[in-house]
């Protein structure tokens, strides 16, 4: 089996600035914290330990589901895998191209046309202008925005903008997919179409990591379920 992602003792600490005084307040916070554990780093700063010594191996073909309460570290782990945060300590090796489905509407501009937004999003996903040229028709067609393509996006309904964002995000071939909740958009009809499209994309990917609260979806899609709590792996179940 080809190992695509390896983590050894991976930890992430978020520094909290502007809280160096008022010790008692800090102590009381430690007791009520539902998120990561509060701690102090070497220079006596307050930090939140969002991920605490995680070790795991993800292999080719794995479908990983991350579950746990709010603040358990699911999203942070996805951000770390996406390369946004470098681990504060420990090691992480990623062997493959990451396609992050986090923030699929980032960079969209309501004042420019849907067409321009396809390019804006495509460029942020790391695509070349030329590559996008060849994808525009398919994306517009799938999103079903018709002649609205050439109108500013502020004229779209919120469902239409979401459909467009979804269509762009799912228009690429992906090796390693990271997703915060199963993506969906639009009305019932579109949601069905969207599910098929995303399932097709996911089934072609070499590795998928999804964070979700939807346990039935996780059971449906994933072969490994990682249960996080306070930034630690509580259990890791393979199907």
């Amino acid at each position, binding site marked *: 089996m080809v190992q695509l992602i390896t983590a050894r003792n991976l930890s992430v600490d*978020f*520094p909290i*600035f502007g809280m160096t005084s008022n010790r008692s307040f800090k102590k009381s916070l430690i007791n009520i914290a539902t998120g990561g554990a509060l701690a102090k780093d070497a220079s006596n700063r307050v930090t939140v330990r969002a991920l605490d010594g995680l070790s795991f191996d993800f292999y080719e073909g794995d479908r990983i589901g991350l579950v746990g309460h709010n603040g358990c570290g699911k999203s942070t782990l996805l*951000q770390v895998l*996406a*390369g*946004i*945060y*470098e681990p504060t300590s420990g090691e992480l090796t990623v062997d493959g191209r*990451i396609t*992050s489905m*986090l*923030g699929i509407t*980032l*960079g969209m*501009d309501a*004042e*420019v046309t849907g067409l321009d937004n396809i*390019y*804006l999003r495509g*460029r*942020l996903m*790391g695509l*070349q202008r030329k590559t996008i040229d060849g994808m525009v028709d398919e994306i517009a067609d799938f999103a079903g925005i018709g002649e609205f393509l050439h109108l500013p996006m502020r004229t779209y309904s919120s469902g239409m903008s979401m459909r467009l964002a979804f269509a762009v995000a799912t228009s690429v071939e992906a090796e390693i997919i990271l997703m915060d909740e199963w993506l969906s958009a639009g009305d019932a009809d579109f949601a069905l179409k969207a599910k098929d499209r995303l399932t097709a994309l996911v089934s072609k990917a070499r590795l998928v990591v999804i964070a979700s609260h939807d346990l039935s979806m996780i059971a449906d899609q994933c072969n490994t379920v990682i249960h996080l709590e306070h930034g630690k792996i509580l259990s890791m179940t393979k199907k």
Partner: protein
Amino acid sequence: MHGIWWGLAWQEIKQRYRRSVIGPFWIALSTAVMVSGMGPLYGILFGQAVSNYVQHLAVSLIIWTFISAAINEAGTVFVGAEGYIKQVNLPLSVYVLKLISRNLLMLAHNCTVMLFVLIIFPPDNFNSIWMAPFGLLMVVCNLFWLVLLLGMLSARYRDIPQLVSNIIQVALFLTPIIWSIEMLPPGRRFLADFNPLFHFIEVVRAPLLGKSIYLVSWLFVFITMLGGSILTFLVFKKFRSRVPYWL
């Protein structure tokens, strides 16, 4: 990262001037208004020939606007891009290059005013005008490290942007922009040498105005470029990965 900063820079300019009739040429127009308003008055105040003074003021103000805007915006280069930095994994240099490209685009618009002024009041000679692009290139290289460094410091210490904008505000008056070093008594001209911003402006300005090349400025700009790049590289190498945590 395949030139994405250029597209983002254009996008921001277009966003700012959307649905305005003359669009980004407002940049040029406001410079034109400032120069034509201040030029004659300050020319008289300083006892200068209007042609000479307007020429000096236009070129100086345009270069200054470019440099000062870039330095002023450095404080928010990462803080302002928090949404991007926390959601997509782009190199931090993308945001710095975007900032510099945007200001270069604004400079390009302002250059229409400069062209206009230099046609109406031509300088004595154009012998060294070919050096202006090199001067600008060195200024841009300096701005790259400076914006990167200030951007990182500002992400960690949020007082830096305030401090920088304070300094820039005063610097407009302390740097020979509205006045020129020729107005200083000969024995006092060395005072300008202690002002780094003077040298930054001078390497672009002197070639455009047909003035003799001031070697000290070129040396200064060159040395800061090397020294600053090394310093920033070291800081960047050590703290690059911390920037998202500071936002």
